[in-house]
């Protein structure tokens, strides 16, 4: 069913090479998240899969069939756009049913499908409204409804939650995950938010300047980042990275240690540090400290950690949690 493979997929706009060449296999029913900083080519890659962007070279296989030259509507994929891209002059019903109508499906069959989708998405009472009479979250549902009724092999999401407020975003995140469970369809989800990536993905694809930096489950990326880029991108707050003197004892160019993997002591430890700023979140306290040769570091203390700015503390890294990188930024595994 819905497997998607990219084979040396390459995209250039004129002289600008956006995707130098990507190889990727996505399994049937998998939830894959493309994550990376803005402008790294996530949307471009997704649009290449959708067929909205032609490949410069390489190919795309869906379900084992070569779909590189196929029209977007023939690929068995549905897309949810960042701006929702609803048709403003059509009712919710019109929006959801438009694709089916274009496909020439009989009217009663369309009505049944729309009713079913509307029921799952809690849109039944809004079916006759126009998009502009809906809230952001409802518009998002309509966009998803439009994708669902086509019964696709795979769903493509391009930053679908970035226009929603924080609380709604968490809700919709859960709903999309639930939908993935219920439908069992393959889903590719693009985001620049690593928290979204970590919470939703079966597998994460980290992109950097159009190249795949690493592919893996959220915990693989968290525990074993292949490169400095992935180490810095995955995890919040960011991993502390130090080069030069602090790295020398570990025989590498750079070491990294996550804020949550540092032990804090008032008496003794590996690195002495001075507290500059404390962020109290209730469950956690993030300390921003000046650790001398190690530079500025972030440390996570559990619970409410009362300290005065300027207080001296000692930090000790958990030895098994230290990440080592060579001078090219590649991880060194023991």
């Amino acid at each position, binding site marked *: 069913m819905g497997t998607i493979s990219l084979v040396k997929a390459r995209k250039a706009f004129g002289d600008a090479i956006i995707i130098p060449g990507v190889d990727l296999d996505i399994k049937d029913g998998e939830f894959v998240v493309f994550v990376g900083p803005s402008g790294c080519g996530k949307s471009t890659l997704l*649009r290449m899969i*959708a067929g*909205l962007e032609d490949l410069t070279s390489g190919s795309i296989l869906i379900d084992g069939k070569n779909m590189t030259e196929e*029209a*977007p*509507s*023939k690929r068995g*994929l*549905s*897309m949810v*756009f*960042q*701006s929702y*891209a*609803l*048709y403003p*002059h*059509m009712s919710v019903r019109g929006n959801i049913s*438009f*694709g089916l109508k*274009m*496909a020439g499906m009989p009217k009663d069959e369309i009505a049944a499908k729309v009713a079913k989708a509307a029921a799952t998405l809690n849109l039944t009472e809004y079916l006759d409204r126009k998009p502009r009479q809906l809230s952001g979250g409802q518009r998002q549902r309509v966009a998803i409804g*439009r994708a669902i009724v*086509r019964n696709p092999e795979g769903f493509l999401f391009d930053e679908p939650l970035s226009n929603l407020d924080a609380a709604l975003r968490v809700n919709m995140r859960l709903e999309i995950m639930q939908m993935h469970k219920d439908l069992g369809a393959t889903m590719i989800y693009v985001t620049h938010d690593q928290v979204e990536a970590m919470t939703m993905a079966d597998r994460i694809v980290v992109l950097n300047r159009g190249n795949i930096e690493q592919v893996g489950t959220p915990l693989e990326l968290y525990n074993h980042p292949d490169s400095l880029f992935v180490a810095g991108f995955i995890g919040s707050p960011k991993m502390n990275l130090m080069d030069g003197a602090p790295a020398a004892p570990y025989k590498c160019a750079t070491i990294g240690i996550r804020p949550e993997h540092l032990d804090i002591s008032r008496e003794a430890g590996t690195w002495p540090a001075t507290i500059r700023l404390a962020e109290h979140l209730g469950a956690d306290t993030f300390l921003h400290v000046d650790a001398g040769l190690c530079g500025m570091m972030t440390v996570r203390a559990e619970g409410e950690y009362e300290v005065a700015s300027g207080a001296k503390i000692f930090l000790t890294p958990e030895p098994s949690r230290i990440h080592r990188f060579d001078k090219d930024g590649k991880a060194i595994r023991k």
Partner: protein
Amino acid sequence: MATQQTRALGKLAVAPSVFALFVWMIVPLAMTIYFSFLRYNLLDPNIACSLMHPGQLFDAENRCLAGFSNYTYFLTDPAFFKAMGNSLILVGWVLGISVAGGTLLALLLDQAFYGRGFVRIMMIAPFLVMPTVSALVWKNMMMNPVSGFLAYLFKLVGLQPIDWFAHAPMTAVVIMVAWQWVPFATLILLTSLQSLDEEQKEAAEMDGTPPLSYFWYIVLPHLIRPMTVVILIETIFLLNVFAEIYVTGTGGRAGNLPFLVYQYGLISNDIGGASAGGIIAVILANIVAFFLMRMIGKNLEA
């Protein structure tokens, strides 16, 4: 407080220009209304009826006051109905041609092709030509039955050239006026086409929309608003078409309301009758504008 003061000050500041504009508008209108109630003919100059001697206006022996007779005369003149009909035919055809043609041209110019910028600029040119000039060019260079370009084309394909102004005066006027107004419609519709959301196009592509359905379900609804704006603006200007009819001498058969007013005033020298005609034309135009505004108001809200 502060804003209230600012507002009052603002009103005070614009008052002189509002006043000037008001006078500018109201004086000619008031004079036209005034003349429309006079028995005032240039061939029969009755000094007593001029503005110079307001006191004698009301003397019964001068017979200056005409009451509503100018209006009843104008409204019962068979030429009035013919002119009304011609006005409607002209407005209707030019609106139809410029909206349909403008849409087609806008769709064409929205495509990427070599030299698009230049073609777009050239496209606007007819709109910038003075109506009198365009009428002269059409009359002498395009539609002349002997030496005109259209006659040349007709002969080229072995057809009898048409003597446009003698045999199809209304068609000729419609062609000339449409030539001027299609670019205007194109410009407005093209601007609107370019504001069509890119992701919506892509959503339609994902939905597998064929080109004609795409036009019908996505593009056309998007264009309805600018189309109504085009219709409103063009109607107001098209009701006033005069130069094309006057210059080409087609007024006899294709004359519209403004041309009839001209005939009353400057051919029959009947200033009173012409003024009454002018006021009637203003009232009719206002009725049209009222209905158009309501129609468009609804459209702009939706």
